[in-house]
């Protein structure tokens, strides 16, 4: 039976709905202490003193730990994937409200919580910077000196730089933009902005460190166990084999739980007190951990008489908050797609990662792409309107076709952009007239398409273990956080070995047991680990055939593995280990031009079409219909793929219509689920999710990742539909009813006055 392409339910679904699935939150170790974090109350300030006496005096408190205590254990207690800029606990300065300053440890979490409220810190307050464009000026500097991690060649030139908030500037130059703009028939320029929002996984961050005897074990809700091991070993100056990282299921990750989050803190605490330490954040504390970049995107296009875009200049400012996290990679690796999926000869891209005094920003389902698509697809629609061309025709005229070079110079191979656009247009019956409503209810529709490169270069390793009875276990460090990777890998291995996917067991990440993987992020797992699993299964199959030959069986025998083992070893004994690494080729962008002809192993393509209804008296927007389409190659499991698509679209719908972290003088004023509104079930519009027919020729059985693709088009498709309905253009997310109302009033020449 074909295992690939089967619509089987996710393997863990029964365990999850019956509450039996394992999560780090449930873990309790003997002698374990609970840590409660005391956080900074000012956005930018030098630490004068931290008063911990009252907290220490609370009965049941084991100890109170500050950054200076950590410094005694680790001389340079700074971590981060791109920059070693983030202290385990604040040292010398605090750089955003909510930054961890001290931790209370107690056997009872309620005691720790109470004691943490008794800590007091004094700061010498410093002026703060919150806006990404303002941060381009060095008037207020968040970090005295830049400290790139050294693992990335393109960050080396930033080492030791002072007097700047620019953590990375990426530039791409293709053709001659100035000359082309000068020659263009029309030059059209806009500025778009996005807001700060966050992942809000229903399982907040949690980690447990067990100091052990010579081997530190970390149990954590994290998407990158291999990275955690490497980084914790680096911090302590240990070999990697003294650190063990175990990850069970995740209650959601969405890019929040990548690299080191709580792991360095619990590890340092466990080593200081020589007892296991657990820290579990509340939902509210998530607002101070990691967020999605607010952005300002200035985009300028030159258009020829024939409606072709001849030049595009993109300036993107990424508000990275107080610590770089993976922001510099967002700036570059998403930055080079800023002109959109269009065939444009002359392109300039300037993309800047900025430090500010906000909660840090990193990866969030799309790694910066939704912010870019928001701008370039809103811009594209506006150009089409200005030229009087149908927005779908205008896109078709400019779209990047198969094997044409994208801005970076890398060809768009196996990227079904036109098909995705066609699928959306067909579903919306674009060539038919829409009922546009009447009176105070007006309807409109809009489309948007986007694309993304995969993170590169990265490595995945897989092991397939066939036991003597033929039962098979798969070892990978991919984290199943709800996306269905366990199921997909079982289907791939089963396809190769001619087993049933449901019979394959998956061992969850445990760095003592499962091999290296760069991380479960950027929709990379199905392609990278999927290829590794396929190769490992092929290796196992070849070894089984060799075993059959040793047992004297003829070549191509259909003896089941259990029989082969028995014949070879005389009893149920032995096993076969298949192993493989997968690492695609990659060429770094040229330092001068930002160009590379091999910048990604594959392209993700996604788009959306929306029909909306606007209440012109209130600005309320209802999405009547949301069409999501993606190129995910040949899906391994179409059912799971569609739910990934709808999940991504709903998440982006929240970022489009309601979600925004409100900031007042650096303080987050709505840090709770009551005040920061994500979509509920009654906000989910009727949706259609389409996987277009395509193939990723280098992917496992023609497949590629799609966890993020469903986010790409949602925001601009809705803004374009609103424009179509009522003629107003929203340039900044989120598009709340009040925002639309104000735009309508401005359009009528009677702007809403605030008394």
């Amino acid at each position: 039976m074909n295992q690939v392409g089967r619509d089987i339910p996710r393997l863990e679904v029964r365990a999850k709905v019956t509450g039996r699935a394992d999560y780090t939150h449930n873990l309790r170790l003997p002698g374990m202490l609970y840590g409660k974090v005391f956080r900074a109350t000012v956005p930018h300030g030098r630490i004068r003193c931290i008063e911990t006496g009252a907290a220490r005096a609370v009965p049941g408190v084991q100890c109170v730990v500050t950054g200076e205590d950590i410094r005694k254990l680790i001389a340079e207690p700074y971590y981060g994937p791109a920059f070693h800029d983030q202290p385990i606990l604040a040292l010398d300065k605090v750089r955003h409200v909510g930054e961890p300053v001290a931790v209370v440890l107690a056997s009872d979490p309620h005691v720790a919580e109470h004691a943490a409220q008794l800590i007091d810190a004094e700061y010498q307050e410093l002026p703060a910077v919150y806006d990404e464009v303002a941060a381009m000026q060095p008037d207020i500097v968040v970090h005295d000196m830049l400290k790139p991690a050294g693992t990335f060649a393109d960050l080396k030139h930033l080492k030791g730089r002072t007097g700047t908030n620019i953590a990375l500037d990426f530039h791409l130059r293709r053709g001659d933009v100035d000359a082309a703009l000068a020659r263009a028939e029309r030059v059209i320029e806009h500025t778009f902005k996005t807001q700060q929002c966050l992942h809000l996984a229903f399982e907040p961050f949690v980690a447990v460190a067990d100091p052990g005897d010579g081997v530190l074990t970390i149990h954590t809700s994290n998407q990158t166990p291999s990275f955690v091991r490497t980084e914790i070993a680096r911090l302590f100056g240990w070999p990697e084999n003294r650190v063990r990282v175990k990850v069970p299921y995740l209650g959601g990750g969405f890019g929040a739980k990548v690299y080191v989050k709580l792991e360095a803190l619990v590890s340092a605490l466990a080593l200081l007190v020589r007892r296991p330490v657990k820290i579990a954040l509340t939902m509210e504390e998530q607002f101070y951990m990691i967020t999605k970049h607010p952005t300002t995107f200035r985009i300028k296009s030159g258009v020829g008489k024939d409606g072709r875009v001849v030049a595009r200049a993109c300036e993107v400012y990424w508000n990275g908050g107080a610590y770089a996290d993976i922001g510099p990679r967002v700036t570059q690796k998403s930055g080079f797609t800023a002109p959109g999926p269009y065939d444009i000869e002359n392109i300039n891209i300037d993309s800047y990662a900025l430090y500010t005094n906000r909660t840090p920003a990193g990866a969030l389902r799309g790694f910066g792409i939704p912010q870019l698509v928001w701008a370039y697809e809103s811009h594209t629609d506006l150009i089409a309107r200005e030229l009087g061309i149908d927005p779908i025709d205008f896109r078709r005229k400019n779209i990047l076709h198969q094997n044409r070079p994208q801005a970076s110079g890398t060809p768009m191979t196996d990227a079904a952009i036109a098909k995705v656009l066609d699928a959306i247009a067909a579903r919306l019956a674009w060539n038919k007239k829409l009922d546009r409503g009447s009176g105070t209810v007006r309807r409109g529709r809009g489309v948007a398409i986007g694309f993304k490169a995969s993170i590169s270069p990265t490595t995945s390793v897989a092991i397939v273990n066939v036991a003597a009875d033929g039962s098979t276990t798969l070892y990978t460090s991919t984290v199943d956080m709800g996306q269905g990777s366990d199921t997909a890998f079982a289907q791939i291995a089963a396809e190769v070995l001619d087993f049933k996917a449901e019979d394959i067991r998956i061992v969850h990440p445990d760095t003592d047991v499962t091999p290296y993987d760069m991380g479960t992020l950027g929709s990379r797992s199905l392609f990278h680990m999927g290829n590794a699993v396929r190769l490992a299964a092929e290796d196992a199959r070849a070894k089984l055939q060799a075993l059959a030959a040793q047992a004297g069986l003829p070549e191509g025998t259909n003896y089941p593995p259990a029989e082969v083992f028995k014949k070879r070893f005389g009893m149920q004994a032995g096993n076969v280990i298949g192993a493989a690494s997968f690492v695609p080729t990659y060429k770094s962008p040229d330092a001068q031009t930002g160009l590379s002809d091999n910048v990604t192993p594959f392209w993700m393509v996604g788009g959306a079409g929306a029909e909306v209804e606007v209440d012109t008296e209130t600005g309320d927007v209802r999405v009547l219909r949301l069409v999501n389409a993606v190129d995910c190659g040949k899906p391994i499991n179409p059912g799971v793929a569609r739910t990934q698509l709808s999940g991504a679209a709903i998440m982006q719908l929240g970022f489009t219509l309601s979600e925004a972290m409100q900031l007042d003088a650096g303080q987050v004023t709505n840090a709770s689920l009551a005040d920061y509104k994500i979509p509920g079930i009654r906000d989910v519009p009727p949706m259609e999710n389409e996987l277009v027919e395509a193939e990723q020729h280098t992917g496992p059985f023609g497949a590629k990742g799609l966890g993020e693709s469903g986010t790409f088009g949602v925001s601009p498709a809705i803004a374009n539909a609103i424009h179509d309905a009522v003629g107003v253009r929203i340039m900044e997310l989120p598009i709340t009813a009040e925002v639309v109302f104000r735009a309508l009033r401005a359009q009528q020449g009677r702007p809403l006055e605030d008394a």
Partner: protein
Amino acid sequence: MIPFEMVEPKSLKEALALLDPQESTVRAVAGGTALMLMMKAGVFTPTRLVCLHGIESEYARITVSAGELRIGAMATLSELERDANVAARLPVLKRAMRTLSNVRVRNVARVGGALAHGDPHLDLPPVLAALGARVSISGAGGDRELPLEQLYSGYYETVLAKDELITAVKIPAQAARKAAYMKVTARSADDWPALGVAVSFAFADGAIRDPIVVVSAATEKVTRMAAAEKVLHGAAPDDATLARAGDAAAAAAAILTDAHGSAAYKRELLRVYLRRAVREALGDGARPVRQ
């Protein structure tokens, strides 16, 4: 959580005696759905909670006598939602329940708690105020009764003494009065409302009589809109009248800016939703709120 005393009196009298007229860390707990959140957030730290679950069962009954509906303060919101008398006499109240939080909260939260909490975003107070409800209050000093809207003195503030408890809500016979409640959420469907507008009125010979107009959520407390009521009384519900009523309400209401929207925007919403509430009450098929 700091340890505290939890007492479970068996009678209302005993419960009242366990409250403290001076001490704000001693509080009664009915369903606890709001109080537990405040405790979890650290904004309320009790020394003693007086749990009302054990008091006489009559305080949880919903009864009708002489046309008046009496809702015991310990009735759950779900009981209110499913009560046959409520459904028959006060369909607006039953309808309001559908978007009031969720079934798990409604199964636990009590009517008395929902009124005494004083949060202007709750749904029950404006609806009940528009229905002309009165609250019965018992305390060490005796019993008293108040029109519901007079219960509130500010944001999360009521006129209840620390040793008083709401025992019941009484809603007069509505006869042929018409009523509607518009809950306007600005961000997601399950958001706290940016604005609540509740209306009830008699309607005869094409004219509105004795209207009650109540605004909630956008103001610091549930507020009756006397100026709008004056415009509506005796008038036909045409566009011009409804616009004037909306203007009167918008001018009078003390609307606040918050995360749900600016005061200026919510004032515009009030104009629109006052009109829609009247139309909804008349059964004109006004466009329902996002829900």
